[in-house]
């Protein structure tokens, strides 16, 4: 088994009203050093990697991220392949 983690974020030029509200809440709690918050999503994925190379796994994860985990119109993603469990 192999673990992977996909992060999805709103693109830089897309307004993130949730991140902005969290930023304001942090300021309200006195964390004045916070300059910006962007809220994203994380997906922890377990894979059966029998006979599949890391390169192939990365390609497949990128494909899944493009097709469904993210919406490429508004979001970017990153893929991390983690250690074997």
């Amino acid at each position: 088994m192999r673990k992977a983690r996909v992060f999805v974020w709103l693109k830089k030029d897309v307004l993130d009203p949730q991140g902005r509200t969290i930023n304001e809440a942090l300021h309200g709690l006195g964390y004045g050093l916070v300059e910006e918050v962007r809220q994203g999503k994380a997906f922890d994925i377990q894979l059966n990697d029998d006979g599949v190379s890391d390169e192939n796994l990365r390609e497949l994860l990128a494909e899944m991220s493009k097709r469904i985990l993210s919406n490429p119109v508004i979001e970017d993603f990153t893929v991390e392949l983690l250690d074997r469990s």
Partner: protein
Amino acid sequence: MTVNFGIVVFPGTNCDQDTKSAVEGLGHRSEFIWHDSAPDSLSRFDCVILPGGFAYGDYLRSGAIAAFSPVIAVVKRYIDEGGLVLGICNGLQVLLEMGALPGAMIRNRDLRFICRFVDLIVKQTDTPFTSACVQKQVLRIPISHFEGSYYIDEAGLKSLIENNQIVLKYSDENGNCTPDANPNGAVFNIAGICNERRNVFGLMPHPERAADEVLGATDGKFIFDSIASSVAERRR
């Protein structure tokens, strides 16, 4: 002219009955199409409606899971064959996620669920969905959404404008598209768009909630009346 509407129902769709009631109240016929049915064709319908609600609980993103359901493959073929498809609210979100219309929806600017009447200026009347309107007519139809702020990048917006695909914009009662008239932060006050071929139309407002005198508003009838006259034209 009696129109035969197909109304797609996903788990979590909640405006299917309202839509059925609205179109049947106007004298049309309608039938539900379940999301995991994959009929060979939808060609027996004059128009397919993707109604409002929270398909698949809006999990992942609004419309994202629905866009991969079996019935959507058939809806895609229906669109390719030139069939009329109307997406209302969540239905528009599904059309965006399946790539039938350009752009995407993000959370409302003020992070509030908004449920109220809005004014909308009709920017295009040469679509099968707005042909019963006059140019620059202002319609009063309710919105009801949390994730209805339309987003498209600059190149995409330019292409929408050039191809006359922006059908409805949030406006004031005189048809001015001011920032104050924009309820959710949508790019360019966009409330409804069509595809280049003009057989697919999606809008955030709910015409089915404004198509009966009893509800105190009837401007939504313009959308269904437009479809009826377009269908009549197609049958000729």
